[in-house]
Structure formats: C-alpha cells, structure tokens
C-alpha cells in the first residue's frame, strides 16, 4: 500500500503490536518527498538511525520512522559504502537535527543539503574516541589507544550589552543525570538555552550488536531506568514481530498493568518534585510517601520495585494470583481518594499556582513542529496517545479493549503538565482496576525462536511519551542492530524553547515539568 500518493510501497508489520508499515525509498529524493508529504499531513518524525549492512548489501542503511495518523511508517534508504550521505530531514522536521548528528557519530553516515548542513558538531562523541572511528561499523574493532581529552563545543554565542553566559553542568546541583546547559542571559532573563548532551553515552547500541535476544532484553531494560517497563515492552514487541510470535492475552494484560503502574509511580514522584521546586515541601513529602508504598507493592507482587526484567520477549516472568489482583484494586481505590485530596490542595494553593501558571509555555504549533509526543505534547492540547483511539488508528491490545480516555490540556505551561499528570494518574488507576478485575486466563509465556534476518519495530506509550525500539536479527539469529528511541530526543529542544520567556530561577521548575531522560537519549 501507499501513503499520501507517494511512490514508496509499504507492507504492514504482522502481529499484535502497534500498527507499523515498512517501505523502502528508491533514492534520497523519494525519502525527501515522503517526508514532505508526512509533514504536510501533520505527521512527525518519530526516530532516525542507521545500520551497517555492508556484509549483506554492500552499503549502509538509513531508517526513518514517521508518525502518521494511522500509526508508524518506517522508511529505509540504502546508502553506498564509499559516500554514505542522505538528504537532510531537519529542514522539514527540526527533531531530526540531533538524531542526524548522532547517526554520524555512531556510523559515519552524513546528511547533506539541509539548513543544518553546516552544523557538523559531534553530538554523542565528546572526545573519548577518534573522530574517524565509528563504533557501529562492524569492522571498527576497538579504537586505537586514545586519551580522553575534553573537547571544546561551539555553543551559539549571543552578543550585545549586558548579555552573558551561565554554564551549568554536566554535574548538576541535585540528584539528577548529567548534561550541560548553556544559558545566555540578560540580568535574570533567559535569552537562549543551548543543551549539550551525550554525557550518559554508554555505547548501548554497540553492546546490543551480536547479543542474543535475552541478553538484549536486560540491556534494553536499562536504557532509562524510570521507563524500564516501556522499553522492555517495546523491545519485546519488536522481537515478537520479527519472530512471528504472538503473546497470550494474559501476558499482554500483565504488561499493560506494569506499564500503568510505572506511569503512576513516575507521575507521583514528579508531582511531589514539582511542588518541592516551588518551595512546597508538603507536596514532596506526601507524594513520595505514596510513591514509596506504590513501589513496595511492586516489590511484593513482582519481586522488583521498578519491575525491571519482568517483561521479556514472549510474555512476562511473573503471574499475579487473584489475591494479588485484589491488592491492586484496593490500592488503586485508596490512591484515587488520596490523590484527589492532594490535587485539591495543589489547585487551591495560590502560591503554588502562581509559580505553575504561564511558566515555561509551549503551544501546540511548536509541539507539532518539534514532533513532540507524550505527556508534554498532550499538555499543549494535542491528542496523541498510542493507547487511545483516534480517527484511522486502533490502539494495540490490550488497550484496544480497555477504552483509555484521552487526557489533554491546552495551556502548554507547567500548570498544564501538572494537570495532565494528575488526570493521567486518575485514568491509570481506573484502568488498573479494570485490568485487575478483567484479567484474562491463560499462559504468560510463549516460546520464541529467533528468525534469521527478522526485523521488527515496537512502539509503546510510556509515561514520558512514545518509546520505540527497532530490532534486526542477523543470519545466525543474534541481534544485528537494535535502536532504542526515547521521547526525550524530541522533548529536549522543546525545553530550550520553553525557558526562553522566563528567568533563570524558574528553570529547575520548568525542567522538572518535562522531567526528561538523559540516559534514554544519550544511549
């Protein structure tokens, strides 16, 4: 089939996962035209990565995943081994910019012809390995003995009277992941923020290459610890699609149960931290208490506070007996009451609302331009949630039958991101009760045999946004290439925009309202 009357021919990915179509662009022009058509139709760029196919096709391959109304369209483009270049997509989708720079650092494939065409600053490579050594090339071996010298980074400079810079990081003041923020300010006012990330780069993609799929599951569960269930499920869905395996209804429902518990845990923690960053310590104490009890029940039911390694390709590792399901229902009922009470306190606290309202705004137009997904996008009024029906889109099971009610807020500010979190907690608590009561019977594991050359793409609506994992098996049934994609890739640039109206002391609150993953995007 075709989309938008473009010549690229697509085939639907088999299986039960989120709707995905795969197609190949004959040349760069076709890819560019397709990107333009997606853009015109209000679509977005979901992910971009490269793979080394020189052993099979003799060249490299570019993979672009576009979010369209019906689901996800994955377009690949073959690149010659000698001069692996492709047309820039950042001119159409600014979100592509950092992904293109990362693809060069990892594989040595380069975009040409975009407005960002002159920006060849490395993104993930800071100076720890040589510039002409690419970790994801299968013949790269180990880098020659190389001293790790900090490199200079060419931040965009602002001039003018009174303008100066505030460098922050990579080590931040709180208990938080490392990254560098360069503020250009006049007095207190932020004129510009430029992020430099990559400090968490652990070479995960290279670790995944050549691993068997169960080892891959362990690595994927640690791309971003706060989203371990979302990653594990997206990876499992990709492996299952590649191997033609369909997990049981009970396994799928247990996965959704874990994903919603992960969503609630993170939202509880964020709501507490947001109160704290506005000097409302009461909020932190109350919400962290709720979060701790929530995590303790996770540990009791699943043997792990964050449910790491519980979702695996083929199913899940832990089953829940009726008494355990009853505990979940009971806890959800209690939390619905307690969170409602706390919400009333937040909503009626003038000082808190004064800090939240109008702070760090982004509007729906900007969110669309930046290909934003998830909670931050919904806080601008965009109804985009992989668990929710929309025209021409059916969510994958078990969400197709759960009837998830979409949550949006048009304001786009910190207050909106707080409100969306509250509403999503209530909705998840409602869903969790429904899942516990309506848990289908059956097995929780289906055996998987890797299929040589199999490919799959998994998409899961995590608490932060859309988590994608692309999987490719080699001829021996090992993982040839796995690319995990975090929604933070798209959200980080939105943060740069959100702070521009505000003053430096408001940055922590705005930053927290997004609560983005460094590790998830640095890989």
């Amino acid at each position: 089939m075709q989309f938008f009357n473009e010549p690229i021919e697509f085939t639907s990915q088999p299986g039960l996962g989120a709707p995905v179509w795969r197609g190949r662009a004959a040349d760069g022009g076709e890819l560019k035209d397709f990107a333009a058509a997606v853009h015109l139709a209000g679509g977005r760029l979901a992910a971009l990565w490269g793979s080394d196919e020189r052993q099979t096709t003799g060249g490299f391959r570019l993979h672009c995943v576009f979010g369209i109304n019906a689901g996800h369209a994955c377009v690949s483009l073959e690149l010659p081994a000698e001069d692996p270049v492709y047309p820039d997509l950042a001119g159409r989708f600014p979100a592509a910019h950092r992904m293109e720079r990362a693809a060069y650092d990892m594989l040595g494939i380069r975009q040409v012809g975009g407005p960002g065409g002159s920006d060849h600053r490395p993104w993930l490579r800071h100076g720890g390995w040589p510039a002409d050594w690419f970790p994801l090339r299968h013949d790269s071996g180990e880098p020659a003995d190389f001293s790790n010298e900090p490199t200079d980074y060419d931040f965009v400079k602002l001039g003018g009277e009174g303008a100066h810079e505030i460098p922050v990081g990579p080590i931040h003041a709180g208990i938080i992941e490392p990254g560098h923020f360069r503020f250009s300010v006049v007095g207190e006012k932020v004129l510009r923020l430029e992020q430099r990330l990559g400090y968490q780069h652990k070479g995960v993609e290279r670790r995944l290459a050549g691993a068997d799929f169960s080892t891959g599951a362990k690595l994927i569960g640690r791309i971003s610890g706060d989203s371990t269930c979302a990653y594990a499920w997206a990876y499992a869905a990709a492996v299952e699609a590649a191997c033609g395996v369909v997990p049981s209804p009970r396994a799928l429902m247990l996965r959704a149960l874990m994903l919603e518990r992960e969503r609630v845990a993170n939202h509880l923690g964020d709501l507490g931290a947001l109160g704290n960053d506005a000097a409302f310590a009461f909020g932190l104490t109350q919400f962290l208490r709720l979060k701790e009890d929530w995590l303790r029940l996770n540990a009791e039911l699943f043997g792990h506070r964050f449910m790491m390694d519980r979702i695996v390709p083929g199913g899940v590792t832990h089953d829940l007996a009726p008494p355990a399901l009853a505990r979940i229902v009971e806890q959800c009922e209690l939390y619905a009451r307690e969170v409602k009470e706390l919400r009333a306190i937040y909503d009626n606290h003038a000082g808190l609302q004064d800090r939240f309202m109008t702070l760090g705004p982004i509007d729906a137009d900007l969110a669309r331009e930046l290909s934003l997904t998830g909670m931050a996008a919904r806080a601008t009024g965009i109804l985009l949630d992989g668990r929710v029906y929309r025209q021409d889109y059916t969510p994958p099971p078990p969400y197709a039958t759960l009837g998830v009610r979409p949550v949006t807020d048009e304001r786009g500010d910190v207050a909106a991101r707080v409100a969306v979190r509250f509403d999503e907690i209530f909705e998840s608590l409602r869903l969790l009760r429904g899942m516990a009561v309506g848990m289908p019977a059956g097995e929780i594991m289906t055996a998987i045999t890797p299929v040589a050359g199999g490919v799959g793409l998994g998409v899961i609506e995590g608490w932060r946004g859309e988590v994608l994992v692309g999987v490719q098996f080699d001829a021996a049934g090992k993982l040839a290439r796995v690319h995990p994609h975090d929604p933070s890739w798209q959200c980080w640039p939105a943060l740069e925009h959100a702070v521009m109206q505000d003053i430096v002391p408001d940055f922590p609150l705005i930053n927290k309202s997004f609560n983005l993953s460094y590790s998830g995007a640095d890989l």
Partner: protein
Amino acid sequence: MIPLLKRILKTGIVTEPVPAGDARRDVERLQVEVLAILGRALTIREVDAGSCNGCELEIHALNNPYYNLEGRGIKFVASPRHADMLLVTGPVTKNMENALKIAYDCTPDPKLVVAVGDCGCGCGEVGALFGPNYATCGAVENVIPVDVRISGCPPTPLALMQGILQAIKPR
C-alpha cells in the same frame, strides 16, 4: 490551608518504628547508628557518572518520609566542596570521566567514595553487561579510589543506607 493541615495530621509521622519484621524497623535502627557514629551531619554529593537513572530513583527515595535521611542530618549537597562523601553511580562514561575526576579532586580530604549499583561496582550480570568499552570506563574504581560498594540493580533504599553506614563506620 485547613485541608493541608488536616492532611498532615492524618498522615502523621510515617518515619516511626513499626512492628518487627518490617523493613521500616531496620531503617530506624540504621538511622540511630549513623548519628551515634558520626555525631554530626554527614554531607553527600551524588554524582551520576553514567547510570540509567534507576539508581537515582532509589537515592531520591532516601529522602522520602519513610527513610527520612535528610531529617536525620544526612544531607545531599550541591557541591563536592561541601561534601564528606561522593555517592557515585555508573558505569563511568568516557564523557563523564573528566568531570568525575574533577569532582573527586574538589572534595576536601578526608573523603569517602561510595560506588552505587551493579554498574558502578562492576559486579553481577548487569555490571558485566555494562563493562568497559569504547564509551565507558566501567566501574567507578577504574577512575577514582572507592571505599565502599553498594551492589544491586538498583540497590534498594535500605541497601543504600546500610552502605552509607558501612562507609562511615570507624575502621
């Protein structure tokens, strides 16, 4: 204001000891020991040198009212210059190697370094999966001297408290 005060009264002090067998009781005992040994505040600078943020979630939990670390005079501080102890998660990435060394040099002597998590300690299955490669140096001890290791993926808040206590116990 009234609902807020009501909520506080209704919640009470959750840090208090509870019947035997519950993890919370062990926490209470640990907190008393920390104060008995140190007799003053212990200041900790947390450095994430490459974690997946799982360890950070549990380090955050130390400040929830159940574990109430800060309430007992064990403080997380914003600068290594104010710190007695570095609590480091890993695996240490190449991109954080220099920053970690600088933070270590900035911490006044005598200083303690506690490596946190299987990646930071280089132990267990996960520690092996995240061993040294082109982008990481592996365990924290490969970059700066380490006094105590707290394993786990991630270590529980209780394990973190035990590790911190072990580090400050007179040897």
